């Protein structure tokens, strides 16, 4: 088949759009490229003019140096510990509360829904200090309790997400099970829970990201050096008399990697989750 003139024109008109997209992609990728390329440079190279993208003095040293400069592995272990427990808490509690609001017709639904939205409006700063005093009074500052325990009591945003999802489940399923003589709890475990995997995955992913990157929480509560998390550990590179940027970039790369990999694997879930839950408000 001969390609006609209009065929070519049609595709040619698309060129500016492609150029725009490619330029945008380059802009969005730039910080990652900078991070990785700097992490493979020596300090001398990083500070030589003119600046180049590719390392002129390639070195792998920064990575082991970064891990040794601060107790990196320990911080990673700490961060994983906190993230895992937070994840556990949210995954258990969020569907429960969402189910209560979506599928059970009881008196509290109205008030709680309003309160959910209201709590999302409260800036963290307002509750920060009294919360700190509470933990201080119990004697649990400088432990991970202030960071993990709240996860076992639900988070308004995630609950709203799951509630929307549950509302989308047809009531007929529950009705049928009710006729069969199951109680609420059985209905929850056997029907609702297995069906909510997509939304639960989204909540899980959000929780993971938030816990992994959490900065203000550990900043306020954790003081002992061996208990720090990766976010805080990374900051130690900046609190220096002089800043070793190449080492810092290597440390950042290691910090970012698990998130990036996770994201690339679970991309579909991310996108679907955000899409389904984001529109319905």
């Amino acid at each position, binding site marked *: 088949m001969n390609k006609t003139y209009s065929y070519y024109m049609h595709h040619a008109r698309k060129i500016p759009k492609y150029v725009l997209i490619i330029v945008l992609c380059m802009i969005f990728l730039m910080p990652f490229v900078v991070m990785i390329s700097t992490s493979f440079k020596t300090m001398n190279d990083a500070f030589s003019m003119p600046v180049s993208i590719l390392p002129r003095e390639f070195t792998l040293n920064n990575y082991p140096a970064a891990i040794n400069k601060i*107790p990196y592995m320990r911080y990673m272990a700490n961060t994983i510990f906190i993230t895992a427990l937070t994840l556990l808490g949210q995954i258990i509690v969020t569907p429960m509360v969402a189910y209560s609001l979506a599928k059970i017709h009881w008196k509290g639904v109205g008030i709680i829904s309003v309160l959910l939205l209201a709590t999302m409006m409260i800036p963290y700063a307002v509750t920060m200090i009294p919360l700190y005093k509470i933990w201080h009074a119990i004697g649990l500052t400088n432990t991970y309790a202030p960071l993990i325990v709240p996860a076992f009591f639900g988070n308004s945003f995630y609950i709203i997400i799951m509630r929307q999802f549950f509302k989308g489940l047809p009531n007929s399923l529950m009705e049928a099970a009710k006729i069969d003589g199951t109680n609420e709890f059985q209905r929850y475990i056997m029907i609702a829970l297995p069906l909510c995997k997509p939304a639960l995955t989204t909540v899980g992913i959000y929780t993971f990201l938030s816990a992994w990157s959490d900065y203000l929480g550990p900043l*306020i509560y954790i003081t002992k050096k061996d208990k720090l998390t990766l976010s805080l550990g990374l900051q130690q590179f900046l609190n220096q008399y002089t800043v070793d940027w190449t080492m810092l970039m290597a440390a950042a790369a290691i910090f970012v990697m698990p998130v990036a990999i996770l994201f690339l694997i679970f991309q579909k879930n991310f996108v679907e989750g955000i899409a389904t839950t984001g529109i319905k408000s």
Partner: protein
Amino acid sequence: MNMSRIERLRRMKKFKKALCLTLATIMTLSVVAGCTSKAPTTSAVTSGSGTQSVAAQKVTFWYYHKGDEGAVLEKTIKAFNESQSKYVVEGFSVPDKQKYLVAMSSNESPDLIELSNQDIVSYNANGMLEDLSAMGSKTKFDFSIFTNSAKTANTVNGAYYALPYATDIIQMFYNKDILTKIGATEPPKTMEEMYDMAVKATTLDKTGNIDTLGYPLFPLASARQEGIYGFGGTWVDSATGLKPTATSQGVLDSLNLNVKYRNLYGIDKVQKFVATANTNRYTPKDIFFAGKQLFRFDGPWLAKMIKDNNPSVHYGVTLIPGTKANPELRGESRYETTSVAIPVGSVQKDGAMALAQYIVTDGAKGLLMGLGSLPANKNLYDDKELLASNDCFPQFIEALKADKGVQYPKMEESAKYTSLINASLDFVYNGSKTPKAAMDELQKQASTLK
């Protein structure tokens, strides 16, 4: 066609699962690795020689130095542990000052902390420090080893709340080669001379950006302090340290000259150079090490760093210039000490005191030589080994002996005052406000501080 797509989806799922499992395993392994590895900065917990009939009591010591400097502190801790068997000290490098506050008020307070004397007033005002004069009289500690300046810096209402082991003062470093190039035989003794030499020495590169900086605009902290003190200006009154004096003539003179220099070359270009200088500070590419800075107000650690990094710059050290009108201001510098203090929440106060006393007496020399800092203990002023350990110690210690030195503000909100000063100086340096306007505004704001 349909079958292969289902097959592909299934395989993708399996692949994803496998990847997840691998990631999870890697993470678990690193958790295990992390938990079993020890934080590398805790010192080896060895106690003193001889048999122990009583278990040694643990003392925790938080210091803010890190990296190589932290290692010097660890060495001193180890020496203390080996010198006696009653206490065992565990040291932690905690560079973030804000952590100290949080910890000191919790039940996990360290027993001894390292701090700059700047923080003593505010910590004490919040009731966080132990009265060391009282404790020292019980242990019969000899406070007379401290100079008057050291005493003023570490006492509140006559009582010591911290013990100083190192002193920091600032003097002027200069590049001998550039000096010769502009035809000067000796470094300037007055600020006016320094200004003229600075202008002669400043050069631009092809693109019009500054290549060599003459005026000591960098480091920023000393430009804010010694740059003013040499003109006779101070930020608080010298009698009590409680009243802000931002509008004093010396401050204005200094800022006017500073702004005049900046306007000569364009504020943007100057700011850019300073920004780059800041990024490079104390690295091998530091502008002074690279021979791109004529005058620099800095401390004795600079000499140590020059030696460690790049011995090819020919430099000299001299006193900070005074002014034509007041030549006796020559050598004016801030007076700062690195001290140790005992938080009220400490559970091992006696052990902490023993460690503190060790640090400021027997342990001081090792610390000072390792850190490149000056002594607070008068008895070390003529110590030959100490003087020889750093090329510029002789000049600095001469300046110390004069026992002058501008003290930090004694007001409780001095941290806020410092922030206000920095912000006001930003306005001046950027040309957004004239020095007089900025300082008037600063004085007005500072008067509301306690």
